[in-house]
């Protein structure tokens, strides 16, 4: 229990550090972000107005204080482009992205196990091919190969369950490849180990052996990979949402980038990093549950 508490504190400290980093980064750059956002032909009055919009007109200490007190009230600032609270905009996109992420995660776990259990030596090539397929290659290729021949599958947008097929497929294949690779190497190592052989010699039935010993032993490294992937999914979602026109966090982020909407970008990055930290924390707790040696 104390260990879990320490991990929680550590995660909170990391989040605080990320918040500081995201807030201070615009002030460390050699070029003034307000100047860049205003464009080549802006007057200095325009630049000053934009600087105020981005919250860069105050010195760093008061700005941080204001930002912290806003954060405590759940306010992430106001979007420059939409002129609405960032938290409200992100709240609209987040469920869509989360749904896509969870769908892809679940599918990739299934496919990962199936690929890992393949006995043929050629299956390694399949793992390598899946790992080496970037989301932004798979997405357009899937559209070209499948969507244009099957009229029932929408090319873009989210209308009905069919529209989730291609995005989650594009997102999950590389993830499944990574998981399969880890699982495969774990499974290969098992038969030689002392534990499984003893259990077998003692006549424990195979089903019990798997449930009690083998599955938890294999799942540790797999869970670590799963946590890293779940935390990093928002990065992949940026691309997938862009390809398939899904109105989630990723599309918001890319739109905010092109319109130089700094508060929205900062909010989205903070949210993405929080998800990563949260996923790590959950995985650490699960690991302790699976492997009593850790507690």
């Amino acid at each position, binding site marked *: 229990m104390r260990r879990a508490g320490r991990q929680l504190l550590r995660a909170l400290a990391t989040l605080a550090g990320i918040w500081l980093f995201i807030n201070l980064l615009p002030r460390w750059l050699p*070029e003034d972000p307000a100047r860049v956002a205003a464009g080549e032909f802006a007057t200095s009055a325009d630049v000053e107005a934009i600087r105020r919009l981005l919250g860069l007109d105050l010195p760093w200490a008061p700005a941080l204080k204001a930002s912290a007190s806003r954060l405590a009230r759940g306010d992430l600032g106001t979007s420059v482009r939409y002129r609405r609270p960032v938290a409200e905009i992100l709240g609209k996109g987040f469920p869509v992205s989360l749904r896509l992420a969870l769908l892809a995660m679940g599918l990739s776990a299934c496919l990962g196990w199936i690929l890992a259990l393949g006995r043929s030596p050629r299956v390694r090539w399949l793992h390598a091919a899946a790992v080496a397929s970037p989301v932004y290659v798979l997405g357009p290729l899937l559209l070209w190969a499948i969507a244009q021949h099957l009229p029932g599958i929408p090319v873009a947008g989210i209308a009905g369950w069919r529209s989730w097929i291609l995005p989650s497929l594009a997102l999950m294949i590389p993830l499944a490849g990574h998981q399969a690779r880890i699982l495969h190497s774990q499974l290969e190592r098992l038969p030689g180990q002392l534990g499984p052989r003893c259990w077998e010699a003692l006549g424990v039935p195979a089903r019990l052996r798997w449930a009690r010993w083998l599955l938890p032993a294999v799942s540790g490294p797999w869970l670590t990979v799963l946590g890293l992937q779940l935390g990093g999914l928002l990065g992949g979602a940026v691309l997938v949402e862009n390809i398939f026109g899904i109105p989630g966090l990723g599309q918001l982020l890319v739109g905010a980038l092109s319109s130089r909407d700094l508060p929205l970008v900062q909010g989205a990055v903070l949210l993405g990093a929080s998800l990563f930290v949260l996923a790590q924390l959950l995985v650490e707790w699960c690991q302790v549950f699976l492997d009593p040696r850790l507690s």
Partner: protein
Amino acid sequence: MKGRWADGVALGFLLLLLAGWMGGGDGQVDLVNRLQAPSWTHPFGTDELGRDLLRRWWAGGARSLSLGAGLTAFHLAAGFALALAAEGRTWAKGCLLAGADLLAAIPATLLALLLLALLRPGLGSLLAALALGGWIPYARICLNRLEVLRQDPSLAQAHLLGAGRGHILLRHLFPRLWPLLWAQASVGLGAVVLVEGGLSFLGVGLPPEQASWGGMLGTARAFFLVSPWPLLWPSAGLLGLLLALGRSRGREPGW
């Protein structure tokens, strides 16, 4: 011996790609011959502005690969240097590890996008965005290994024999760190190519007139119903490159 031929194929592929710098140019605009299928004059076909796809594919591959190789070398050197600087001082090491944890908690694509939102678009910004987080694994590996290696009595013996800090570093520490760093570099190169392709795909990486595989895919996806060729070639290139890099990692001893 197994897989030796695959190494040869991969190496030939990489060399051929790097030769793209000599292939010359990103292709001439020729609006009459837009989106042509492969033919004798254009072996890969043409893109939506009538530019020769073979040329652009080659130049784009060379660009992705040299960007990746350059950045990976920078990451490796930066990680090594930071680890050396922080080593031995508890607070410096703590700061470095905390900073690494912090940056590693922001997914690579998001970190790059955050920086690109603040900087003027262009090659310099792209490099900065990709360089920001890449040094972390190298620094972590070096710090971990150095802590173990410093305990080794052979270092104390070398010191007693009059070897200087530089000699110990180059002759005793670096050769033992190198295999680990090299293994990480083959992973890191793939990661850099992957993220750079994604950023160019979104149109926030390299400018569109400078061909890159990610950027070519990004524009080609609007035209794949008319002609799939602009989509297929860069896809094949990226898949082949990442597969070759992945294979070289698969056989690394002790990892």
